[in-house]
């Protein structure tokens, strides 16, 4: 019988305590912010959208190998020795054209594993998080700075150079059969070295954050 009364008393008492807590919170200031008008400043290491600074990219595929979900699609073309491909900011000489450098940001899991192995630190995760698209294919960012025409031109030249090398090697191999070894190799045909006009940057380029 006593338990019956203590039950009632405890119920009423705990209900009142609960009401006291919620009533006190009626007057404590709210912690939420009105999102589109007020935006939180993300910390410096925030990992959201990827940004690749193509001038420094030497096409080494390190990021492609480190990515667990392989959302990179990179194509590189060997630059001819005569062509001048420019220098990376870290002072290395670039030897590969990178006509295609696509990241499928829809597949990316934002783990940041691609940022560490990059020798020239050209891939970085910025704090931009509002980049939703209506069409999934728009989320495939192509960072390459070469226009398709240039890329085709570079590929043609590389292929042509390739054929020459192969032909020369074949010729040298047959020459070795006909004449004893030691005859000098035919000098390489001079490639036309038209410096690549920088194409309009299609990807979203951010000024690297200070």
């Amino acid at each position: 019988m006593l338990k019956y009364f203590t039950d009632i008393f405890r119920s009423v008492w705990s209900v009142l305590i609960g009401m006291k807590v919620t009533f006190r919170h009626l007057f404590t200031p709210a912690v939420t912010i009105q999102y589109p008008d007020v935006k939180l400043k993300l910390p410096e290491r925030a990992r959201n959208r990827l940004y690749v600074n193509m001038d420094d990219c030497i096409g080494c595929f390190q990021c492609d190998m480190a990515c667990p979900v392989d959302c990179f699609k990179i194509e590189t073309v060997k630059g001819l020795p005569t062509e001048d491909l420019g220098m990376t900011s870290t002072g290395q000489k670039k030897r590969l054209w990178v006509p295609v450098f696509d990241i499928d940001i829809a597949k990316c899991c934002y783990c940041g594993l691609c940022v560490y192995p990059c020798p020239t630190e050209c891939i970085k995760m910025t704090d931009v998080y509002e980049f939703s698209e209506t069409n999934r294919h728009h989320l495939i960012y192509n960072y390459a700075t070469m226009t398709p025409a240039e890329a085709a031109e570079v590929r043609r030249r590389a292929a042509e150079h390739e054929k020459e090398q192969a032909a020369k090697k074949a010729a040298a191999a047959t020459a070795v059969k006909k004449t004893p070894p030691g005859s000098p190799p035919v000098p390489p045909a001079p490639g036309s070295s038209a410096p690549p006009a920088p194409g309009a940057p299609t990807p979203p380029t951010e000024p690297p954050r200070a």
Partner: protein
Amino acid sequence: MEQLLRSLIDSDIFVYTVMAALPLLWILPYALFAVWLERKVSAHMQDRLGPMRVGGWHGWAQTIADILKLIQKEDIVPAAADKRLHFLAPFIVFVGSYAAYAAIPFSSAFIGSGINIGLFYIIAVSALVTVGILMAGWSSNNKWSLFGAMRSAAQIVSYEIPSTLALLTVVMLAGTLNLQEINRLQAGGLTNWFIFRKFPFVAIAFVISFVASLAETNRTPFDIPEAESELVAGYHTEYSGMKFALFFLAEYANMFAVSAISATLFLGGWRSPLKKLMSGPVWGAFWFISKGMFFVFVQMWLRWTLPRLRVDQLMYVSWKVLTPWAFACIFGVGLWMVL
């Protein structure tokens, strides 16, 4: 109010339709305000802001936007549903809670119909809500809704008994069922309200009637029929658009009706607490609405504090706790009056 209308046009039909429609003038704006208030109260109790954007200061137009949205929403009726019952249920639920407003005295000048069995009529007619909920639950052809409907039928019916008994104590004191009369008996300021007469018993009866009224309007801690975490939304799962808005309106109308009855019986409906000061018919309406709104606020306050009871615990509270204590109060008041 009736003479005023008859002096305008002398046909019964016009007068009675206007008299029937008058409480709507109060319920619709009240419901808009109450929904907004609930969202703001719940927000600030949870350290949030609640609606802030629609219509400027603190999102006052949010409910109007909701109503407009609900009106143009498609009214989906489940294929295997019992079409007629499904269509009728929300109206019966609303009628159940709206009919109670006929006998509630808003102020000394205005009362829907001053019938002399006012309280008895209100309790009887508010039982209609159960029929509506059962129809809604059964016709949605959804196991979860059926569960919700069964639970709510058991809950509302079993909580009418303690609530009626608790109100009986006041009727014993007042000697009449006519709510306008009960109001007149509570004249003369705060000390003369029923809640303070025959001190412990009527006060306990007040608490019992308030808790029982929580169960009748399916509010926490008795919101088992529409338990979000178990039955998704209970009996009104399969409703959308205007019918869902009607269920919502019925719930808020019922909330105010129940708190109005508690205010009228226990806290001197439109009587002002300061004896003669501010006690005209218009002031009466002000006092009545503020008491009603205070109880509505307390119901909201409880909703954002307490967890939900289970169905068998609900029955235990009704039969083992509230009903015996209600009998004790009646016995106490009766003994006190006789001695």
